[in-house]
């Protein structure tokens, strides 16, 4: 095809960020104010230890020392018969459960949410069931899961999986509802089949909101997994907290919770980075907008 190109005003071209320059905008960066926040928290904590006895509130340096001591081998936990008696081993067990529950739960919830957004009958059938399941408090549901799946990994994973699936169901359904119909109409006029519309419009168009839902579900999953382990498990960081609580070892509880918190923050940072890369096209997915 031969044709004459149309000149674009220089002012318009000069303001468009393209090519390599745009790649410098990474979706993850260290925020100095975040470091300031941590510094303030530790300072207040340290200040409080002057007034509160160490048996109730151990000092930050004592907790970090305890983490270093118990990280690979914790004698206190060995005494209670834990097979992998260390903070590292307990945390790895918890991480495995959370990762399995979040991946499977997110996939099930997101697919169900997208399907029900597209089919009115499926929505009528599933909405009430899922929303009812979502309102059951975790402390009420946990005993049932222990009865159904036994004391072990399965009950803890299923409990977290249910929470993640319900969360993602709602996020995916809302994302599909909010997707502007003009994209589907445009695709249809360009010759897209129904299958192409699902793969090329529905899925990519809802991904930023779904991944946002995954991050929220992941943040909640750590706490739920710890509760599930605390209520009925033989392993995990929640079990370690329960054992430390049993002997009023406040320093041990703080050490286990701090490890859990740090791991949760690291996982959130990694997922934020990966999701930012996946949805580089989206304004809303990028911290601070464009």
């Amino acid at each position, binding site marked *: 095809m031969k044709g004459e190109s149309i000149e674009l005003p220089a002012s318009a071209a000069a303001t*468009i960020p393209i090519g390599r320059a745009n790649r410098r905008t990474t979706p993850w960066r260290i925020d100095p104010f975040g470091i300031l926040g941590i510094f303030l928290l530790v300072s207040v904590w340290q200040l409080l230890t002057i007034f509160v006895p160490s048996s109730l509130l151990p000092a930050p340096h004592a907790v970090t020392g305890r983490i270093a001591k118990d990280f690979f081998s914790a004698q206190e936990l060995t005494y209670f018969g834990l097979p992998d008696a260390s903070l590292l081993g307990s945390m790895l067990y918890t991480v495995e459960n959370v990762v399995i529950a979040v991946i499977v739960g997110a996939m099930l919830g997101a697919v169900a949410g997208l399907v029900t957004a597209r089919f009115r009958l499926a929505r009528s059938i599933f909405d009430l069931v899922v929303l009812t399941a979502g309102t059951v408090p975790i402390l009420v549901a946990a005993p049932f899961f222990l009865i159904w799946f036994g004391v072990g990994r399965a009950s803890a994973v299923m409990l977290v999986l249910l929470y993640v699936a319900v969360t993602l169901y709602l996020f995916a359904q809302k994302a599909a509802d909010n997707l502007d119909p003009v994209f589907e109409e445009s695709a249809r006029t360009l*010759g897209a089949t129904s299958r192409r519309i699902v793969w090329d419009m529905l899925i990519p168009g809802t991904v930023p909101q779904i991944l946002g839902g995954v991050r929220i579900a992941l943040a909640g999953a750590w706490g739920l997994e710890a509760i599930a382990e605390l209520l009925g498990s033989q392993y995990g960081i929640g079990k370690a907290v329960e054992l430390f609580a049993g002997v009023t070892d406040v320093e041990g509880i703080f050490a286990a919770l701090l490890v859990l918190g740090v791991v949760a923050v690291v996982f959130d940072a990694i997922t934020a980075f990966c999701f930012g890369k996946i949805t580089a096209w989206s304004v809303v997915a990028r911290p601070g907008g464009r």
Partner: protein
Amino acid sequence: MLFEPVEKSMIVLNGVSRIFRRADGQLVRAVADITLEIPQGQFVCLVGPSGCGKSTLLQMIAGLILPSNGSIRVADSLVTEPSPERGVVFQKDSVFPWMRVIDNVEYGLKCRGIAKGERRTIARDYLRLVGLSHVEHAWPRELSGGMLKRVAVATVFANGASVLLLDEPFGALDYVTKRQLHDVLLKLWAQSDSENRRTVLFVTHDVDEALTLADRILVLHSGQLVDDLDISVPRPRTADSLLLAEMMNRKHVLLAHLGLEGATALAAQMEVGS
């Protein structure tokens, strides 16, 4: 330049009506018994006041909604669903934000099974024609409103549609950008010889835009076709072209149809004067 269309009907509407049921249960006739023929290669503008049924009529021709009564044929085929033969540029931004600019332009070709190398060549040609070669790998969020419209126009032209349906595509743009896009649209439209030229139906409520672009202006009011005006002033039409007697007369007729008091009388006076 004035293009003589080849007299072969591309779009034929026969007694087309469309009735909607409102939320309060009341039936509303958006389009009422329209019969119309548009020859192949003609650039037609459809004007009318807000809510008169322009967009509904265009969506029916696109196959996005079906008529309640009557039939629509495009290139001798009955319209029952959307087709890549009828490209649409929407009023809202319809460029897919999750695809880079070049992927947007070649999306229709991909749907039609064109090989990757060939469709990329075609997409690049059209991006060059609309002046966007330098942003082919940019994300749509990095483009201005005018550039997004260029991408949308390049996409429907690249897809090879024989009929282009544009629903107030430049309504939200500033005057200068709008004029630039008129040039882009007319150059793309005019690049084919008259036998292969695309038929364009352009919905607008901007009378000057219709006079600048159209071979023919259809006026819609309350869902009915109330006037059908030919525009014989040669292209390119500048701001000065709109001051010619024929254009001024047409403008006042159109303004009268849009409900502006006194415009009818002025149009009649100019008719006598000319």
